[in-house]
C-alpha cells in the first residue's frame, strides 16, 4: 500500500509538467488550429527565464573587504551583488534565495511577448497551410530557439536551486498512519503539484467565467460565426497563443529546481506531451490535463521494482504503448471532441 502511494506521489509532479505543457499545446491547437512543435522549446525558455533572473539578481561588482585577507595577505576582494547595495544584505540574500519563485513575475511578461512575436511573425502565415507544414516550421523554430539558448548558456545543465526553505522532504506517511520515513515527498515537488493545479484551475476559470474566455470558447466552437458577429476573433486567438506560451514558460520556471535546465530539455518533454495531447484527445482541454496526470502516474507505476521484474523494460515504453493502444482503439482520444482532426 505505501509503495502505491509513493508511486502516485512520484507520478504527480511529472504528470503536472506534462499536463501544463499539454494544456498549452491544446489551447493553441483548439484556438488557432496549429500543431505547435515548438511548445517544448517554450517550456525550455521558461526554465532559462529562471536562470537568467537569478543571474540578473546576482549581478555584482567587486569590493575590497579590508577586514579579511586572502592567503597572500592582501585585502580580500569580494563580489557584492548590486541588489545588496540597494536593499541591504538580509533582504538581498533572501531575494536571491527565492529567485526561482520570483522569476515567475519576470517570466510571464517575457513569455507572453515571445508568444505574441512568434504568432504574429511566423505562425500567422501558416493557418492555411497543411498540418505537415506547420509541424515542420515549428520544428525548425524549436531547433533555432534551442540553439540560441545553447549559444548563450552553453550545453551543460545549470543548477538552479529552490529556496532553502523548501529543501528536504515531507514525511507524508505519518499523516496516513504509516511508519515514519516510508513515504517521503520533497517539498518542492509538492509545491510544483499544487502550483500546477492552481495554474490549470486559473486557465479554466479564465475561459469559463470571463467574457473574454467566453468569446474564445465560442471561437473555438465556430470561428466563422463569431467573426460574422463583428468580433475580432483573431486578436483574441493571438492573445491565447501568448497565454499558452506563458503557461509553458512558468511550468518551465518552476521545473528548474527539479531538473537542471539544459538546452534540449524542451525536446525531451515535447515528444511526451504530444503523446499526452493525443491520448487526451486533440482539442480537449480537460482531456489534456487528465491524460497528463494519468500518464505521469502510469509511468511511475511502471517503474516499480515489482512490475519491472515481471515485464522488463516496461517503464521505458509504457507511455508509448498506451498511446498506440488508445490511438488505435479510441481514435478521438480519451475526451476528444467530435470532428476535430479526425483524419
Amino acid at each position: 500500500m505505501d509503495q502505491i502511494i509513493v508511486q502516485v506521489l512520484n507520478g504527480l509532479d511529472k504528470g503536472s509538467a506534462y499536463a501544463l505543457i499539454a494544456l498549452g499545446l491544446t489551447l493553441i491547437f483548439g484556438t488557432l488550429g496549429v500543431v505547435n512543435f515548438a511548445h517544448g522549446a517554450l517550456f525550455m525558455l521558461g526554465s532559462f527565464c529562471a536562470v537568467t533572473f537569478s543571474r540578473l539578481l546576482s549581478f555584482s561588482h567587486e569590493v575590497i573587504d579590508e577586514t579579511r585577507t586572502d592567503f597572500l595577505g592582501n585585502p580580500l576582494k569580494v563580489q557584492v551583488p548590486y541588489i545588496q547595495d540597494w536593499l541591504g544584505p538580509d533582504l538581498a540574500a533572501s531575494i536571491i534565495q527565492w529567485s526561482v519563485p520570483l522569476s515567475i513575475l519576470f517570466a510571464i511578461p517575457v513569455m507572453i511577448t515571445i508568444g505574441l512575436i512568434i504568432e504574429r511573425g511566423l505562425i500567422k502565415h501558416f493557418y492555411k497551410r497543411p498540418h505537415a507544414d506547420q509541424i515542420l516550421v515549428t520544428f525548425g523554430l524549436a531547433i533555432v530557439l534551442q540553439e540560441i539558448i545553447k549559444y548563450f548558456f552553453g550545453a551543460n545543465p545549470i543548477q538552479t536551486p529552490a529556496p532553502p526553505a523548501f529543501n528536504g522532504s515531507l514525511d507524508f506517511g505519518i499523516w496516513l498512519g504509516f511508519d515514519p520515513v516510508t513515504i517521503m515527498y520533497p517539498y518542492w515537488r509538492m509545491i510544483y503539484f499544487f502550483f500546477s493545479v492552481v495554474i490549470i484551475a486559473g486557465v479554466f476559470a479564465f475561459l469559463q467565467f470571463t467574457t473574454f474566455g467566453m468569446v474564445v470558447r465560442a471561437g473555438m466552437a465556430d470561428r466563422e460565426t463569431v467573426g460574422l458577429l463583428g468580433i475580432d476573433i483573431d486578436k483574441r486567438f493571438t492573445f491565447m497563443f501568448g497565454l499558452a506560451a506563458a503557461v509553458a514558460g512558468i511550468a518551465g520556471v518552476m521545473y528548474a529546481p527539479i531538473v537542471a535546465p539544459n538546452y534540449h530539455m524542451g525536446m525531451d518533454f515535447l515528444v511526451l506531451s504530444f503523446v499526452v495531447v493525443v491520448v487526451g484527445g486533440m482539442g480537449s482541454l480537460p482531456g489534456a490535463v487528465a491524460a497528463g496526470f494519468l500518464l505521469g502516474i502510469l509511468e511511475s507505476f511502471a517503474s516499480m521494482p515489482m512490475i519491472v521484474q515481471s515485464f522488463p523494460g516496461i517503464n521505458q515504453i509504457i507511455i508509448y504503448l498506451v498511446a498506440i493502444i488508445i490511438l488505435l482503439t479510441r481514435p478521438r482520444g480519451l475526451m476528444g471532441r467530435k470532428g476535430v482532426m479526425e483524419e
Partner: protein
Amino acid sequence: MFGLESKDGKLLLLVAALALLAPVILNPFPEGSAMSQFNAGYPDLMQRFVIFGILAIGFNILFGLTGYLSFGHAAFLGVGSYAAIWSMKLVTMNIIPSIIFAVIVAGVFSLVVGYISLRRSGIYFSILTLAFAQMSYSLAYSVLTPITGGETGLQIKSTDTPLLDKALEAGEIGRANLFGYGMGSSYQLELAGWQFTFNLGYYVAAVVMLISFYFAIRIFRSPFGMMLRAVKSNQQRMNYAGLSPKPYTLAAFVISGMYAGLAGGLLVAMDTQVGPERMFWTASGEIVIMVILGGAGTLLGPVLGAGFIKYFENIISKINESILQGWFAFLPDGLQDFMVAVVYPFIGKGWHLTLGIMFMLVVIFLPGGLIQGGQKIGSWLRRKKNVVAKDSTTKPAE
C-alpha cells in the same frame, strides 16, 4: 535507357557521373592550401553522402509521394544496422549477406509498424511512428541489451568467429569485406598538389545508391507511383473510384523502410559498429530535414539535401574561432573582431542554428526545397535572356 524516358535517363547518367567522380569533384582545393579544409573528398564523408542519400531517397518515396510524414524513420535504419552487424558476427564478414539481411529485417519490421500506424493519417500517423521509434530506442537502450549491446552498442570483436569465414589469428579483428577486398582499402592518387582517394567502400555504397536511385525513378514513373500521388492529393476521391489507398501506402511504407534498412546495413559495412542513438527521434528529425531541405517529391532533391546536411555537419562544424580570425585578418582590428563575433554563432559548433534557420526559410518560402529554388532562379534567368533576345530581334525591324 533501362526503360527510362530520355530526361530521366540523363538525370541518372548525371548522378552516376557525379557519384563516380566524387573523389575528384569534391576535392577541388590542393592539399595543404588554406581552402583544403573545405575538401569533402575523403572516404568517410563521401560514404556518408551516398548512404544518407539512400535513406533520403527512401523517405521521399513515402513522404514525397503519399504525403505521410513519418517521424520515426531512424528506427528502420537502426534495426537494419543491428541486423547487419549480427550477420557479420555470426555468419560471415562479407558485406553482401549482411546488407541483404539488413534489408529483409528492416522490411519485416516496417511491415509491422506500417500495418499498425497506417490505420491513422495526418498528425496521428506522425505521432504513432514517433512512438514506435522511441519505443525501439528505449528498448535497445535498456532491456534488449543482450541483443543490442545497450549503451555501448555493438562492435566486431576479436572473439567473434563468423561461421563461414576462415579462422583469424588470435587477437585479430575481422574486417568487413567484399569477397576478401576490405572496405577500407583505397587507392591514393597524387597529382601536382592534389590528392585524390579512391576508396572501395565508397564505390560499393555509390553503386548501391545508383541502383536505389534507379529504382526510385522507376517507382516515380510507374502506375504504382501514380497511385501514391493520388493518395496524397485526394484520398476520398480515390475511395469513390473504388480503390483502397491502404495497400499502396503500406507498400510505400515498407519500401521506404527497406531503403532505410539498406542504408543501415551499408553504414555497418563501412564502419562496423552500431549504437542505439542511431534510432533516437532527433535522427528521424534529421531525415525529415534532409528531404524537405532538398525538395520533397522530387527525384534529386533528397540526395542533395542529404549531401548538404552531411557537408555542414562534417566540414562547416569544424571551423573554429581562430580559423575565422584568419579569414577576416585583412580587416582592421576592431572590424575583424566584430565580423568574427557576428559570424561565429552561425558556424562551427553553432551550425545547427544555421541549419534550423535555413530549414525554416525553406519551409516558409520554398515548399519545394532547394530544387524549387534552383528552378525558380533558372526560369528567372531564362526570362531575362528571352527579354534580351526579344530586344535584339525587334531592333532590326525598325
